[in-house]
């Protein structure tokens, strides 16, 4: 009996390692090839150099792409974080008749394919003044982020005791004092996590951005997309590594502030 348990958990552990490898290997490979000075991408790398990193950071086009990505991500954060947090707060605090309908409306953008959202936005605003602006790209991302933050904050707020706010009101705090003295400090880490989530999900978004950017507002992932369409240039590996590094840094910050318990709520 004991033996079968040991055997099956060995199998489980082994399978786990293989699946983790499957998830992580592409990232490792990209990182290794980005340090290869050769002009053609190949494995194993022929040497070690930061040649392509220098190339990346001295090239105006790539620099712009990186900056544009940051602009869009910041703008998206400014739009989606308040929208998502306020709605999730309302969901947890109040009971009302249309609650289920509101909840469904809030989740729809999360489950609608980005491809279709991108196309719909292109058709609706492609011939208006908003065409190709940072704003429209950020808005496209904000649709998804708002939904996502809404779901995440719902989970975070389920542990939040609204009596603290009532106590504050009872002791004479007005709405603003209540928020700054009680709500904000108690939910600080959840808010920070929401900001980080919004930033990184927008920073790496590509499907919608492909339809909405112009050469002026092109983001890093889209730049990567267009450059790879023509050739497998090694600088693409550097751009990829930059994207990965952003993801890792933000990911570590999120785990620090938010813990992985809440992270696993991302599933549906």
């Amino acid at each position, binding site marked *: 009996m004991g033996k079968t348990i040991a055997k099956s958990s060995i199998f489980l552990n082994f399978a786990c390692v293989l699946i983790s490898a499957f998830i992580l290997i592409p990232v490792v490979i990209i990182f290794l090839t980005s340090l290869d000075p050769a002009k053609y991408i190949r494995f194993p790398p022929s040497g070690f150099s930061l040649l392509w990193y220098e190339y990346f950071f001295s090239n105006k086009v790539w620099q712009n792409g990186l900056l544009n990505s940051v602009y869009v991500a910041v703008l998206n954060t400014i739009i989606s974080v308040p929208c998502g947090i306020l709605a999730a707060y309302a969901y947890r605090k109040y009971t009302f*008749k249309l609650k289920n309908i509101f909840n469904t409306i809030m989740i729809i953008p999360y489950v609608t394919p980005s491809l279709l959202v991108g196309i719909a936005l292109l058709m609706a605003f492609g011939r208006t003044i908003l065409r190709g602006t940072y704003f429209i790209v950020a808005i496209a991302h904000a649709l998804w982020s708002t939904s996502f933050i809404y779901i995440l904050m719902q989970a975070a707020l389920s542990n939040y005791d609204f009596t603290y706010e*009532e*106590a*504050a*009101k*009872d*002791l*004479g*705090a007005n709405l603003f004092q209540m928020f700054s003295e009680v709500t904000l400090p*108690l939910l600080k880490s959840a808010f920070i996590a929401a900001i980080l989530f919004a930033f990184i999900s927008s920073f790496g978004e590509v499907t919608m951005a492909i339809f909405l950017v112009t050469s002026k507002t092109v983001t890093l992932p889209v730049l990567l997309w267009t450059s790879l369409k023509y050739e497998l240039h090694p600088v693409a590996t550097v751009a990829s590594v930059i994207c990965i590094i952003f993801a890792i840094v933000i990911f570590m910050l999120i785990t620090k502030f938010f813990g992985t318990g809440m992270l696993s709520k991302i599933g549906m």
Partner: protein
Amino acid sequence: MDIAVETRNITKRFEKGRVVALDNVSIYVKKGEIFTLLGPSGSGKSTLLRIIDGLEEPDSGDVFIDGKCVTHVPAHKRDVCMVFQRLALFPHKNVFENVAFGLKMHKIDKNEIKKRVEETLWKVELNPEIYALRFPHQLSGGEMQRVALARALVLRPAVILFDEPLSSLDKRLRDKMRVELKQILKRFNLTAIYVTHDQEEAFVLSDRMAIINKGKILQEGTPRELYEKPQSSFIANFLGDTNIFKGVIKQMKGNLVIIELQDGICITANYTETPPISRDVLVSLKAEKIVLSDRPLFENHLEATVKEAIFVGEKIIYVVELNKELTLKVIEKNFGKTWRKGDRVLVNWLPDDIILIPE
């Protein structure tokens, strides 16, 4: 008579009017009085408290504090403070900051805050030098209670509201804290409304109390009045261990009524106030007012058999059977002669202890 708080005809419905939480509730609380709202869970007692505090608005009716109508005044502008069920001490603030919170919100001068917070901590018997910098998670259950009380006291409100704050403590500490709480409230002559579902708590604390059930105030008065003269079977049942029977009035002479319970089992009762209107009545007899004996002690006695004898330490609970359908619960002190299952006994009581309840 100075009235601190009054509610007039408060009605509140939830879930689009389907559930009536409060139905035309009017109460008043005098200055310096501890008033208790006693009721089972879901009776609407906490809702009434929250309406007085301003956390909820009534559908109709008015709230008066110090004679002023405050029905539509938001919570943060009312001169009342609440001690919450789960205390709601701010976990990110230390004891000093928790107690100072209300004063800070009212933009009171820093030195004045410090003075008043320390003064209040002394009042609740917490030494500020030891406790001021501690955080709520570093306090014991009893200390947290005191901080919560201090946080309300420091604002010197017209009335302090308590929403079952002691319910999370274990029994021993709860017993100790309720006596202390009463001492503090009385020492500083404070007005308080206390909500609880615990009968003993209500009896220990109250000057006056009201019993509330299904959104309605059933009766109000001193604890003694309610216990000795319940006006409905709900109250008779709710307070203490009570035997309740249906009976029919057979005869009335002077102050005495003879009531037939069942096939010839008759009892005699006194009535002092208005005589019963109908012939059908409910008869209530508290379990501790019955004495078991082997020979008659009082005029009122019946024969019975002990069905069960349950030993609970300082007292013994007996279930005795008068006949197949009539059983009585009897509580006796664990003193003197005790009985065993199967013993034949006499059940004795005084006519004064039989209470007639209009059915």
